[in-house]
């Protein structure tokens, strides 16, 4: 056993699994499968990340190109838990259509609901997201809803029956990290369903800081896929997620803007 797996095994004993909708996931990291330079790098990076749940998108089969472009030619659905998304949808109606197509693929009834409201920022259309969430939850979907870092909308999505609420750290693909840790903490404090921070994490310190806010997990894609070495970054993220989680559970020392010595003041020589 290497030092890393030993440390990870010890860390796992100090934390429970990520439980969403009655399903326990060993890792608190969820990763996307988009934008990798090659399928082999994608699979290697996902394995290195330790994530069990991976997101996929629903798209037309390209009839003019290779038949191997479907992700399931590269990613074994027995090894990973597939979370289909509704990425690219700009209306509730489109999101419902994509979600139903995803479920018809026959793997599970889970959906990462995402309704985009603006092309420039890719910020979510929360009104349309809520509308779609209600319909999908009513149809028996396990909805994990991507949303803004807005407490009220997060509460509404929970009320709508979502199994997890996923506020952004910062815009999709921006790598800016958590721009509003206070709102993320507030959402986590008030919701009963798991809170997964989705989008905006850029590097390991971002992932660690995100987990230190007390959230249940992090979903990322570009931070791995666009790293110069995605496999190394995936290892780093795996460790950062665990580190941030344990630091949160441990409870940090109070921060103060004065120095306090760590060694005794008594017993000094004359």
């Amino acid at each position, binding site marked *: 056993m290497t030092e890393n797996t030993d440390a990870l095994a010890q860390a796992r004993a100090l934390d429970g699994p990520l439980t969403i909708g009655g399903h326990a996931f060993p890792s608190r990291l969820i990763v*996307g*499968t*988009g*934008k*990798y330079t090659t399928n082999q790098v*994608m699979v290697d990076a996902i394995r290195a990340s330790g994530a069990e749940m991976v*997101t*996929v*998108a*629903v*798209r*037309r*089969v390209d*009839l003019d190109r290779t*038949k191997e*472009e*479907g*992700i*399931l*030619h590269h990613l074994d659905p027995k090894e990973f838990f*597939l979370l*289909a*998304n509704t*990425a690219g949808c700009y209306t509730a109606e489109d999101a419902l259509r994509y979600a*139903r*197509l*995803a479920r*018809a*693929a*026959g793997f599970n009834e889970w959906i990462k609901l995402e309704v985009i409201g603006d092309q420039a920022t890719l910020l979510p259309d929360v009104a349309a997201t809520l509308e779609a969430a209600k319909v999908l939850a009513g149809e028996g979907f396990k909805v994990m809803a991507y949303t803004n870092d807005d407490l009220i909308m997060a509460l509404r999505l929970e009320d709508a029956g979502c199994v997890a609420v996923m506020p952004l750290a910062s815009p*999709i693909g921006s790598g800016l990290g958590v721009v509003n840790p206070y709102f993320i903490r507030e959402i986590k404090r008030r919701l009963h369903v798991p809170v997964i921070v989705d*989008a905006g994490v850029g590097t390991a310190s971002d992932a660690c800081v995100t987990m230190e806010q007390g959230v249940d997990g992090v*979903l*990322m*894609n*570009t931070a791995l896929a666009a790293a110069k070495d995605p496999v190394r970054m995936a290892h780093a993220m795996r460790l950062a997620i665990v580190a941030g989680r344990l630091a949160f559970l441990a409870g940090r020392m109070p921060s103060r803007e004065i120095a306090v010595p760590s060694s005794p003041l008594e017993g000094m020589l004359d």
Partner: protein
Amino acid sequence: MSPSTTTIKVRLNGKERDIGEGHTVRSLLESLELHPALVVVELNKEILARDAYGDTQVREGDNLELVHFVGGG
């Protein structure tokens, strides 16, 4: 009935295509070298159950969408 040399016009993933007459959805997928278990079919805006592929005839003017999972975040 096997596909004949007579063709019909269908809309396939947004493009007009001429395909042989007499195809079922299953035989059409096979002719496109697509694995039925990895593709979801929407026929005229309705999702077609996988166990109906073999019994569903493709007809002139049908609008078919063939989708699958690709990489995404």
